[in-house]
């Protein structure tokens, strides 16, 4: 056997054993393969639907005019309103709004649509009631009603509008909201696979003295690390392929980029996330030490990396920090590949951040590793 082959023998022996071991463990199979799929199905159904915004409103039409009843049926047809039919008076609506169960009440007063004495055309004013705590909801609703009024007005007054806004949602270009959500779900899976695995497995192995048995041999830490990283990168890729197939089949994911690029990002992302888990699990003597530290690392990443909340909604200070959190460039890269067919060259800045973190995390993991 050549020296090189001998040096890598522990790695090449460990990887297939470690992968087989996973498939013999029903609990591990559930957490690695099934749980992310359940997560995908739940979040995919929540975020995958097309009716993205829906206002819970009560409509009180006090007018007998035809214009008023047309307006109400138009409101029903938009699909933007989730109309609470059970409410009959304003007092009950106010009461429900104060409890946050209703966004607004739209009142069409009795004189709406009637012709005032000096005017030839009918007129009216719709009233929108909203709770003080729901300012933004009220404003949005007001502008929706404004535009509806405009179309009503155009039936009576023929005016040409020189400046208009034409909105075009990206959904018309073939991208659904799911396509965006999916990269967050993938990122979350990478995060939980990479960190929760080693932070529970390694401390348990230490307490049983399994790692100490390895320490008694000539096995080197880097050989042990490399074996674990490779087997986990493989398992991570497999889990994500499964999610990807489900996303395409169930949620009609539009994949616009290259599968090879995506696989590279997923593999690199697994290596980084697993490195974080390795640093924590390799350092911790027992699960009591590992659990709080891993929570401390996972929670901020989960909330600041755009898994659940879009980064652009955060304050600018936070956005700047967010960019440098390990998970953010991974999710961004996945999103850019899926939705914009980004090349690895386009992803240079993201890859630079990921690369930097890999160096830092693995130096840390080597320094902190303990066999017992």
């Amino acid at each position, binding site marked *: 056997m050549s020296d090189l082959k001998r040096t890598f023998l522990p790695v090449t*022996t460990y990887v297939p054993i470690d992968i087989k071991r996973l498939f*013999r*463990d029903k609990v591990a199979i559930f957490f690695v393969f099934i749980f992310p799929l359940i997560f995908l199905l739940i979040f995919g159904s929540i975020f995958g639907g097309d009716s993205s915004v829906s206002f819970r409103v009560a409509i009180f039409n006090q007018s007998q005019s035809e214009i008023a009843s047309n307006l109400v049926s138009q409101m029903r047809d938009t699909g933007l309103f989730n109309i609470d039919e059970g409410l009959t008076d304003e007092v009950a609506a106010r009461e429900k709004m104060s409890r946050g169960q209703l966004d607004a009440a739209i009142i069409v007063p009795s004189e709406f649509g009637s012709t005032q004495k000096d005017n030839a055309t009918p007129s009216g004013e719709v009233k929108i009631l909203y709770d003080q705590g729901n300012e933004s909801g009220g404003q949005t609703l007001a502008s929706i009603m404004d535009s509806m009024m405009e179309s009503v007005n155009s039936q009576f007054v023929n005016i040409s509008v020189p400046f208009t806004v034409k909105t075009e949602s990206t959904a018309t270009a073939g991208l659904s909201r799911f396509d965006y959500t999916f990269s967050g779900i993938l990122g979350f899976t990478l995060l939980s696979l990479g960190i929760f695995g080693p932070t529970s497995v390694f401390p348990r192995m230490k307490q049983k003295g399994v790692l100490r048995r390895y320490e*008694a041999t*000539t096995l080197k830490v880097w050989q042990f690390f490399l074996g674990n990283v490779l087997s986990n990168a493989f398992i991570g890729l497999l889990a994500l392929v499964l999610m990807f197939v489900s996303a395409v089949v169930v949620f009609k994911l539009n994949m616009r980029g290259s599968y090879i690029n995506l696989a590279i990002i997923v593999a690199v992302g697994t290596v980084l996330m697993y490195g974080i888990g390795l640093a924590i699990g390799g350092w911790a003597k027992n699960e009591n030490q590992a659990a709080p530290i891993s929570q401390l690392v996972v929670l901020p990443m989960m909330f600041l990396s755009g898994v659940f909340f879009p980064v652009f909604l955060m304050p600018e200070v936070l956005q700047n920090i967010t960019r440098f959190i390990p998970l953010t460039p991974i999710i961004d890269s996945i999103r850019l590949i899926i939705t914009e067919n980004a090349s690895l060259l386009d992803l240079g800045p993201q890859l630079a951040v990921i690369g930097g973190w890999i160096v830092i995390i693995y130096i840390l993991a080597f320094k902190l590793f303990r066999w017992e």
Partner: protein
Amino acid sequence: MPKPMIQVKDLTKRYGDKTVVDAISFDVQKGEIFGILGPNGAGKTTTLEMLETMRPIDNGQAKLNGINIAKEPQKIKALIGVQPQTPNFEEKTKLTELINFLASCYGEKVDAVSLLKRVNLEEKANSYPENLSGGQKQRFSIATALVHNPKVFFLDEPTTGLDPQARRNLWGLVKEVRDSGITVLMTTHYMDEAELLCDRVAIMDEGKIIALDSPKKLIKDLLKRGFSKQQHVEQANLEDVFIDLTGKALRE
């Protein structure tokens, strides 16, 4: 006299103010079974772990096959096989896979099944370690310690918790290992085990070696000092009765 396989001089280990191993010195000859005896907490395991390169040596010197243990731990690790007090292995892993991996740690490829045959476990080749009995686990651990043909084999209280049949079987295995030319250094707190198995023993108490010789010589010396047992010694004891009734065959 040939050079000893292990040379220990003034070996010392402290934990804080407590001196756990207190400047002990002894030699282990090539091809012998050397036992370290003593009550719990005497410093046996710590001594063993220092010689296995698993604990830093605070003071004194230890050499194995002429190599300084503190200075060249990687070289020492390649020469020794280690049996921990409670051997544990990664779960859901076949015995053959574990042997293959442990051999690969030394850069070696081995015939796992024939190694298992050596410790009478060939029919368990595809079992997982968590499904083995205590005695089987100990025997498997011996097989994993021999994957790289070591010169010295360390065993830490190998028969604690085993039934009489399993203990006897293990003694036979240790003797076979010694007979294949491997030097054995073991700890125990069972005197019958030491008397039967060890060529020489060191008795430790509170971190110091208080006696070192062959079991026969130590007994003879004691009798010379006028010691006599208060109770009349029978020609057999309860364990003999037990073995006579249940047989020597392994139960697992």
